[in-house]
């Protein structure tokens, strides 16, 4: 960024760092903050949102990172928050909201079911991931073949499972396969569907990983007399595997969330996954708290993994 000589004086955007736009944002933010205490109600919220948005645009689009602009943005946002809360207090019945969304009593006796649901959700995701990795790697190896007739079925597989909705695939396995004598219970049907579906995505992840390994690696292996398969097995795939660990964890997170679609198939009490448990509890009590609880459990499962992926990616970048 640092430029030498005269060119460095004027920043590339041509917008002065301080001055009119920054002061404008500051004034706007202050006005919004003041307004929040004076004028209340939906109209004030709208005005304040506009104020905060204007400040944000100044900072982001025009890159006016002056102190005034940032303070203005902060004031605008704070005013907006104050206005929203004030309006909500006036127009909404908070006690009713709490009893509907954060009612610990509504979870009474639900702990075991939620735990069971979380367990089943995890099982669906883990089975889907492991089977997906095995099948997906096979599909990827087929797809990277030089021969078109070897590639074709792999590409067709990926197209089929990525191009149709997962819910339809699950429904087909559970509801349409019995006509040819394949009768699976909800959990098995769900795990099968998730595995077949994730295999298509995992195949694409592996394909990209395999193709990211430098061409010289295959040449060196073949140059030593290794047959194509051995070169893949001992040289290419191990290197590809390291690179695809972050996207594979991402795929696991996606799978964990997508397992909620299995709820649409209906289930026995033991085989319910998280969303089904929440749904059934809601159906009995007409209280939304089970959904909030289920959401928190989903977050509890996915957020640590998200952090792990970020760390892995940073590690890989450092190694590269």
């Amino acid at each position, binding site marked *: 960024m640092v430029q030498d000589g005269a060119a460095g004086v004027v920043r590339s955007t041509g917008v002065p760092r301080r001055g009119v736009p920054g002061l404008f944002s500051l004034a706007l933010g202050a006005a919004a903050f003041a307004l929040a205490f004076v004028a209340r109600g939906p109209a004030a919220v709208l005005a304040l949102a506009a104020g905060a948005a204007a400040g944000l645009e100044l900072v982001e689009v025009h890159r006016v990172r002056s102190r005034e602009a940032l303070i203005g943005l902060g004031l605008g946002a704070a005013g907006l928050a104050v206005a929203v809360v004030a309006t909500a207090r006036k127009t909404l019945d908070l006690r009713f909201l709490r009893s509907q969304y954060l009612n610990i009593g509504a979870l009474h006796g639900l702990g075991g079911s939620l735990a069971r649901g979380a367990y089943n959700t995890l099982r669906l995701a883990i089975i889907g991931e492991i089977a997906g990795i095995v099948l997906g790697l096979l599909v990827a190896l087929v797809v990277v073949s030089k021969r078109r007739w070897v590639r074709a079925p792999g590409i067709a597989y990926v197209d089929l499972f990525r191009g149709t909705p997962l819910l339809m695939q699950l429904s087909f396995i559970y509801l349409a396969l019995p006509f040819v004598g394949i009768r699976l219970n909800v959990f098995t049907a769900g795990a099968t569907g998730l595995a077949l579906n994730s295999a298509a995505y995992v195949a694409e992840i592996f394909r990209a990983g395999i193709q990211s390994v*430098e061409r010289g690696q295959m*040449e*060196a292996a073949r*140059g*030593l007399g*290794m047959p194509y398969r051995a070169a893949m097995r001992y040289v290419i795939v191990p290197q590809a595997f390291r690179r695809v660990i972050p996207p594979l964890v991402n795929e696991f997170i996606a799978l964990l969330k997508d397992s909620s679609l299995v709820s649409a198939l209906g289930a026995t009490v033991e085989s319910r996954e998280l969303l089904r448990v929440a749904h059934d509890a809601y159906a009995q009590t007409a209280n939304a708290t089970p959904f909030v609880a289920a959401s928190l459990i989903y977050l509890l499962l996915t957020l640590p993994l998200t952090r792990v992926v970020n760390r892995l990616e940073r590690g890989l970048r450092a190694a590269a």
Partner: protein
Amino acid sequence: MAVQDGANQADTTKVVELRRLHKRFGDLHVLKGIDLTLERHEVVCVIGPSGSGKSTLLRCVNLLEEPTEGEVLIDGVKINDSRIDIDRVRTRVGIVFQSFNLFPHLTTLRNVTLALEKVVGLTKADARSRADEGLERVGLVDKAAAYPSQLSGGQQQRVAIARALAMHPEVMLFDEVTSALDPELVKEVLDVMRGLASDGMTMLVVTHEMGFAREVGDRVIFMDDGLIVEQGPPSAIFGAPSHPRTREFLSRVL
């Protein structure tokens, strides 16, 4: 060591023979009819401007590039033939690349033993002792446990040479092996190659190192525009080049 293996097939002294070799990449005609013979124990250096087809020529010898036309013979047997098991041929034709191409996920030792175990079928112990022999040759036994990323470019290239040598090839192909190295690391690699040459290894060396070609080459080939323009002993090529294009090239690089 490689010489002993070669002795089994001593009925011919022509280790490598290329006949009317052509290579096209689409419309690009890279090799336009190459005839080349490599005698046992001979060191042949290929020089020429970039884009002249030197590397492609070298890579055709072990069929990393499939020739479009013509024949490649190793020990008198045509190898660009669908009935030939190219993987077996390649164990006898070692190749070293400009970009080293060590396997980054394996230690130095595993880099050398992998093909010995999986291709030659040696036991772990036998592969290990052969690898040690190869690493000793390039002076890197003490780096057996290191990963490629922990080695300098020169060391990586020497490991790559050891890896190829451990297969006990009859002929070694070197594809601009010092071009990717920092200047101060070039010598250690050339020294290893010098040692190989004086031990009688048959070598085909594509190089920009004119000093090496002059000193170590038994024969120097000048290539330009997909053809062998001129060839002969180094003294002739460097001392009294007969072709104007050779003279022009040498005047630019020397």
